């Protein structure tokens, strides 16, 4: 669950804040020596917790279909350009309300990496493989699932839609064929 991830992070933060409170009580100021150099650092008392609300109305069909297990791209009926990630505007033709088209069949891994040093918001996952695969006229970036030693440039993959735990939201991944 998304809140579990937050709880784990907040526990760490709470510990740091407790120390900061103690420091402020002891010295009257939230200033502590930087461990390596001893340089005095003011530890910000005002926290900014950012979490954005990203509008997805124009591509809401993508998420509706994702729930049904499909990954969709958009296609301009005028010039034929296929867009993935999907977008509802074709800037080339200056038209909107593009057609939707499922990404089907097998793709081919163009490149990949294994993320070892993870961002804190992904720290609750084991090291993950991110790849870019070519499916006809579009590329898809996603986690690659399969035995690590078998993941190579040129490997055949297909798209799979499933819930990713522990966040528990539906997303797509590339799995080795």
């Amino acid at each position, binding site marked *: 669950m998304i809140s579990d991830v937050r709880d784990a992070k907040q526990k760490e933060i709470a510990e740091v804040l407790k120390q900061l409170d103690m420091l402020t009580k002891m010295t009257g100021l939230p200033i502590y020596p930087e461990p390596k150099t001893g*340089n005095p*650092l003011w530890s910000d008392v005002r926290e900014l917790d950012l979490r954005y609300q*990203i509008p997805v109305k124009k591509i809401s069909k993508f998420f509706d279909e994702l729930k049904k297990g499909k990954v969709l791209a958009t296609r301009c009926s005028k010039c034929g350009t296929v867009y993935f990630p999907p977008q509802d505007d074709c800037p080339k033709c200056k038209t909107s309300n593009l057609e939707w088209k499922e990404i089907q069949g097998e793709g081919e891994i163009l490149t990949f990496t294994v*993320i070892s040093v993870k961002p804190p*918001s992904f720290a609750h996952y084991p090291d993950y493989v991110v790849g870019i695969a070519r499916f006809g006229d579009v590329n898809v*970036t996603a986690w690659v699932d399969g035995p690590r030693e078998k993941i190579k440039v040129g490997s055949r993959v297909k798209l799979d839609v499933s819930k990713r735990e522990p966040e528990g939201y539906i997303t797509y991944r590339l799995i080795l064929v």
Partner: protein
Amino acid sequence: MTNVAIIGTGHSKFGSRTDVNLQELAWEAVKQALEEANVEQKDIQYFSVGNVGTWSAEPLPAVVIGEYCNLAPSGTMRVEAACASGSAALRDAYLAVKSGEADIAMAIGVEQMHQSPNPTVVEMIGRAGNYFWEFENFGLTFPGYYALYATAYMNKYGLKEEDLGKIAIKAHHYGALNPYAHFQKEITMEEYLKSRPVAWPLKLLDSSPITDGAAAVILASEEVANKYTDSPVWIEAQGVGSGTANLSRRTDFTTIDAARMAAEQAYRRAKINLDSPWKEIDVADVHDCFTIAEIVAYEDLRFAKRGEGLTLAREDQTYIGGRIPVNVDGGLKAKGHPIGATGVSMAVSLTRQLLYRAPNKGMQAEIRNGRALAHNVGGTGHYAYVTLFSTRRPGL
């Protein structure tokens, strides 16, 4: 339109600068540049500030710096072009002078990444690809983006780990000679090969560090420059380009289109032969945020043919004395990469190279053509700036 000259340069020590705040750090570079050019603040009619921020506390850095450095009330703005923000600031100040709006302008680049803990910085930089489709859902990190390039390059051209290691070793060699560098320590191939993985195939020693630093240059129009200095370094030409935010929208992961375009623009403007531009350039600073980026840069800048950048690395052709000396200030890898300062830092390093003022003899390239090149990429080719600096007045 007038020619534009650099008449003063300033550079702070790069590193973990917890001894100063953002504006104090900027002042170190600004003060040095003012003194070097013998210019007073009131003469600076416009200043631009390259700073990406978010990891540091001040949300309006240009204003805070203007106040601290006594540059207000001159016009200013904060400029963002990711890791090329410094070059963007330089461009902004350059255009202000070139257009005739200002006789003297200043470009300042500053970044203090250590105001946030390292994991937070990793998180923030990771968000700098395409946020939603790459970071939110798949947790790509910045080394991860370049690792995608490294994997593709290895697969296509047979690049080996050791080839990347040679780039890191060269960077640390010159970093060890540079008193301004974050890392002033040589490394061995053994240390490189043992360094821990960050985003396979890239390791810690393939990566530029999280750095604090500032750099500044003072620019003047041709008429004014001659009053201040007998040795102006001219901004001969600049090329700019941009690329997709989504890496998946790129077609080739062994070259950066935006950088190739920027290089070609700059070469054409300076009337440089596109077949072998390196013959007309004495020294270059290229964007080596990761070792693979330097190899790709060799090719994008036409220092080597496609797929042959790794040969330059293998043959040590980018040390002083080779085909073209590259990153003899230690590069982003060893000098450090305070994102908003990097582009201005390149301008400072190269200006000093052209004037035979490298801070250490061992890192001074031989100047034959009087021309140096800076290649500064924002993101993974989201932005690209290629700037040519020359001791010869453009048009001569």
